[in-house]
């Protein structure tokens, strides 16, 4: 099998910052695999995910999607590229003042006519699809509620639904359960994994909890000070590897 997303030597240095947040990072991502990215706070996990879908601009390096360099894409092609990527934020990032269903539909904004969607004109199929994904996420009774009426766990389920409706090739999840209590966190990760495996969507998930990372991923990537220090199937990750990832800086 060939990787559909190739990340080649990407680095990121934020303006006004002396050191690299991400340095010379490589990763090949294969269809349907689940990769956990672990590392201490500040090790560059979020920066990495945001560089992949262009929320943050890389300073150098290349990203290839199906062999095509994202840097050589026209803005239209890049928009198309982004529709292949679902993103799940730690703080859910829902629009609180609109309905749960409308929040889910925003996942399709890059794929539909901007004029139609600006007037709230969604096709019947889109609305039905949104509803059925919400039902699948166990939120059937919340479809028309305002998003700010939901609990944290429910909000994160909505944001998973928002990613799923895109029909993405890959979902990037940035510490999706860090703000939730452990039982809720576990249920949500179980669901995320099941839905993505069923649809053969690849997942890159940032987690700081090692146990969770081992349990939910096929592969583990360790980041330390912006550099990749570990990359192996989860079954081969050892105590030693985590020590290396989490050890104190001299």
């Amino acid at each position, binding site marked *: 099998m060939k990787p559909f997303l190739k990340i080649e030597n990407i680095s990121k240095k934020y303006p006004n910052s002396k050191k690299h947040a991400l340095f010379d990072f490589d990763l090949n991502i294969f269809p349907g695999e689940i990769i956990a990215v672990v590392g201490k706070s500040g090790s560059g996990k979020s920066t990495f995910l945001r560089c992949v879908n262009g*929320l943050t601009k890389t300073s150098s390096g290349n990203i290839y999607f199906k062999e095509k360099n994202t840097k050589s894409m026209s803005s239209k092609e890049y928009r198309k590229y982004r529709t292949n990527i679902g993103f799940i934020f730690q703080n859910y990032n829902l629009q609180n003042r*609109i309905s749960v269903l409308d929040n889910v539909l925003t996942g399709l904004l890059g794929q539909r006519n901007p004029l139609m969607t600006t007037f709230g004109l969604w096709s019947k199929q889109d609305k039905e699809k949104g509803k059925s994904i919400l039902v699948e996420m166990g939120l059937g009774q919340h479809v028309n509620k305002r998003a700010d009426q939901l609990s944290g766990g429910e909000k994160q389920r909505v944001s998973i639904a928002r990613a799923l409706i895109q029909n993405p090739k890959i979902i990037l999840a940035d510490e999706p359960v860090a703000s939730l209590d452990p039982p809720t966190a576990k249920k949500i990760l179980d669901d995320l994994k099941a839905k993505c495996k069923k649809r053969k969507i690849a997942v890159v998930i940032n987690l700081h909890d090692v146990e969770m990372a081992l349990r939910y991923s096929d592969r583990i990537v360790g980041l330390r000070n912006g550099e990749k220090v570990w990359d192996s199937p989860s079954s081969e990750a050892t105590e030693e590897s985590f020590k290396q990832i989490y050890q104190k800086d001299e």
Partner: protein
Amino acid sequence: MNKKITILFFVALFLWACYETEVSFKSLINGFADVNFFISEMFPPDFSEVSKVFPDFITTLKMAFVSTFYGAFLAYPIAILAANTVTKTKFLNVFFRVFLNLVRTIPDLLLAALCVALFGANPFAGIIALSFFSFGIISKLLYESLESLDENSLDPIRAVGGSWLSKIKYGIAPAVLPQFLSYCLYVFEINIRAAAIIGLVGAGGIGTWLNINFDLGQYNKISSLLLTLFLIVATIDFISSKIRKRLTDS
């Protein structure tokens, strides 16, 4: 010690300001004598003509309402173009910010006098003047709300390749709607008073009657008009501030 110097400094500043602006107790006391004369002339208020001029009260309210509407209608897109959180074109931001500042430097009464000169002494002139005035306030307040929006809240829309219009419809508009409505109500409150006052320079509405009665020296009719206006303004302020409170609480 420091405190004493500060107090001394402000007292000196105050006295200097009084001197420069030729405020004196003598003129203040003379002024009081005139006020005394007016007040005694104003009582008892003569309500005999209030019902006759009632349509002009309605005209004043209509002027206030319509101008708030026009002002808001113009302010919305311009504030969006001026705010760099929403519109990412630096040139447009700067251009519209300068424009907004220019609009606000024009004094309202000058604006009203100008409109009367241009369009004649009628409510239309008043509406144009007040619309400009409303536009100035609403666009400034809205622009500040937009600038203080958390840009991360737009990430989900950027992440899926959503357009500028999508960002406005699904990210920005719902987020600032309560504030926007609240500003409109606030400006409507101000506009009722302003609409009555610019009537004095001939822009129609109840101000016309204030002017006529002033010239005729019928101060007891003026007082009846002012009391009626006060009642109307107070009622609307009361209702509007209740609504505004509810808007900004949710």
